């Protein structure tokens, strides 16, 4: 039976045809079959929000099915504070999140199954919690903040993270989100840590080949608004979703989304407008959105850093 990866946004998942998500064909052998997704778009169009949705949805399904798999979000441009704000605004940790219609497991997670965005920083040369997080079976989404520290060659570091995350038995594929690929390129330059001149195509190829048997990869690529060419990420990924921002003649900015490619899968072509709501949620009754968090009270933002990583649902389900 094929697996389906979803964003947790019903209208977006519906663009992928009857599968209602990115379909992953079963492998012929015992190894897991993985896929690669590329989110392309100019800055400020919502790529990171969608990538966080994708990661959270994957973690949610993993926890619901009690599978052992890692979900890592490696960020080169989005800091943890901002990412966690998004996480809380959309209740991505599933606490307070309304069940998604037409989903295989529409039930909300139990309280013990809810999960957080957990930050970690690579610190070469010292004992870090990265190794601890690799070894333990975490139910959370690990946020690897590559902005906070550098390991020299981030590509090489991610390769090593990938192979270290590989399970001894392919129970359930891991998920690695790289946001954004340009950040890796800037930090590493054209030479790798061994002085070898490497093209971006070569590095992406090695990344996908390293992840092939055990990890899904979501690549976030930032391109200019006028960019039309196909980057190595778009060329190699199985699924490419392009986000755009259109300016109308009245100065109104409108976000659109287009599935450029979905290999071996039917999908709805063309540009589709989408809106990123304010994240305050929908009321539990009435005309709310299915993928919105339910709220009973107004949102109260706090500066309490001790609550970092914990979902701050708009509404109380304690």
């Amino acid at each position, binding site marked *: 039976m094929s697996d389906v990866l979803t964003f947790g946004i019903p209208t977006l998942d519906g663009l992928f045809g009857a599968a209602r998500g990115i379909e992953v064909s079963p492998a012929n052998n015992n190894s897991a079959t993985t896929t690669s997704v590329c989110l392309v778009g100019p800055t400020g169009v919502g790529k990171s929000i969608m990538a966080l949705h994708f990661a959270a949805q994957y973690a949610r399904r993993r926890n619901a099915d009690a599978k052992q798999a890692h979900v890592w979000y490696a960020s080169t441009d989005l800091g943890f504070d901002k990412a966690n704000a998004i996480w809380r605004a959309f209740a991505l940790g599933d606490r307070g999140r309304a069940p998604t219609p037409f989903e295989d497991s529409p039930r909300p997670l139990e309280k013990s199954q809810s999960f957080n965005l957990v930050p970690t920083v690579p610190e070469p040369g010292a004992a870090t919690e990265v*190794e601890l997080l690799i070894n333990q079976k975490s139910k959370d989404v690990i946020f690897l903040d590559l902005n906070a520290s550098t*390991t020299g*060659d981030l*590509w090489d570091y991610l390769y090593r993270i990938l192979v*270290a995350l*590989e399970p001894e038995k392919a129970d359930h594929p891991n998920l690695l989100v790289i946001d954004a690929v340009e950040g890796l390129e800037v930090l590493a330059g054209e030479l*790798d*840590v*061994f002085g070898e001149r490497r093209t971006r195509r070569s590095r992406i190829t*090695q990344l996908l080949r390293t992840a092939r048997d055990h990890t899904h990869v979501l690549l976030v690529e930032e391109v200019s608004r006028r960019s039309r060419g196909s980057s190595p990420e778009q060329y190699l990924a199985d699924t490419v979703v392009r986000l755009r921002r259109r300016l109308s003649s009245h100065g109104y900015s409108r976000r659109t989304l287009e599935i450029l490619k979905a290999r071996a899968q039917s999908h709805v072509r063309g540009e589709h407008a989408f809106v990123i709501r304010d994240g305050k949620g929908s009321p539990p009754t009435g005309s709310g959105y299915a993928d919105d968090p339910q709220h009973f009270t107004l949102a109260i933002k706090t500066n309490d850093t001790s609550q970092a990583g914990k979902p701050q649902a708009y509404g109380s389900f304690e």
Partner: protein
Amino acid sequence: MGAHFPAIVRAGGWAARRTISTAARTSQSSANGSPSTRTAASAAGHGKWRRRQCCAGPACRKKARIGWTRLGPEPYNSLKSWFGVGEKNARSGRGQPANLVRHRNLRVRTLPPTIYSGWHAMARLHAVQGACRVTRGGMASRRIQLTYNLPAGDDFTVYVRTGDLMQQWGVRSLPATIDDVFETADAHQRVVGRGLACRCYRGGYYSISIRAGEARHRSKNKPLTGESATDNPLPDTSWDLAADPKNKSRLDLGHVVTSLNDTVWSLEGHNDGALIVFGRTNSGKSKIARALTAKYLRHEASRGARNRNVHVVTVEDPVEEFLRPRDQKDSHPTPELLATSRIDYTPRELGRDVRTVRNAMRDALRQTPDAVYVGEVRSDRDWRDVFHFAGTGHLLVATAHASSLVEGMRQVMRAMRVTTKAERGAVARRLLSVVHLRRFPHENYTAQIPTVWRRCAAAVSTLVTEGFGSVLPMNRNDEDVACIGRRWYARSLLTAGNAPENAKNAIEQAALREDLQGL
């Protein structure tokens, strides 16, 4: 004498003809007028050389006496050894005066033939114990001719003890190698063989490796001793590392060797190329490399269809551990002691037995080795010589110092002057495996944890295209895995080694950290 062993005529070369007896040599010299006459004439102009001449030629007062002895019943046990006399550059007529190798009081020690069986053991154990004088004229080669009654088609090694005169004449006066084409003959048919004699056992012996006979005479699939070799496996040697369950303070190297033995060899079954063990000093790399070599020799000996003993050549500076039967307490073995182990062993010490690694590698190509062990490759030139040999289809095991697996591989590439991807691929194809050992101490427990790069289907191609960035330590040991990380070894080794639980967790964590950092 002459009737049983007719004069040996070289198949071609500078020495023209050789005879067994002094009388024959004299007549031959007078017949063609060249070797001895030229020898004497050349030597006459060099006083210091002449003083060291002992007996050959008209300028000498003494006469060389070549002794030989029949060993055992015909046709198997007849061994006749004769150290020839040659002139350097006699073909061109230039260079130093002729050689001064002489043999005096040559005698053959016969060992009880009932203990040994088979051609190879006989040939090896009939060690000629005699004295030979050699010149210090800088001659790189000596002529050795052996006449023996053995059927063609065998490879074997004869150890010739050189005697005390070696010390008398000093190490520097000894030739580095003795390299020649042999002519072998039996009573019925003359066959031509190839071989090489080199100094070994710290100058105490000449190890003469002989391949006798033309291809059409070679026996096929001949068991070693007339019986299946697997029925008589090799005994334990001093190179084998056995696990010591009583040792609670450190991970036993026997476990490491067992684990490496399951992972370093080629998955395709062609164990040719270089197996290099890197590490810092006192990391156990030499012990582990020797133990892996012993495993390989045992594997080769068990194959059965062989026409000689397994042969290992070592090049070290100095010899750290002689290969000998484990129950043999003598640290300096004689070839006779190794007879029971069914291993032909040629230990060569740099500076004493052989001058450079290059010479040793060149000699090894004539010694039919199953494995060559080089202890501590230090210079770029040595690396080039080692890898030149590794590309000849033999197994070469070497040790060297490096701080990490990738650093060791870079050291190799740098020494090989690799500048292009194609050259990197050519060097990578000569690598069988690269092992790096690191010591992980935790409180009162210490473990040597390896990481391995090995040649597999995709290893070379990814190394060519992606460079050392493709050396990613994996946490599994499947056929398609080129690099096995320390984390995998730590988990398997510490479980097998019964490490304390706290040490096990800490060392596993440290091993994972090393994998992430590429160390």
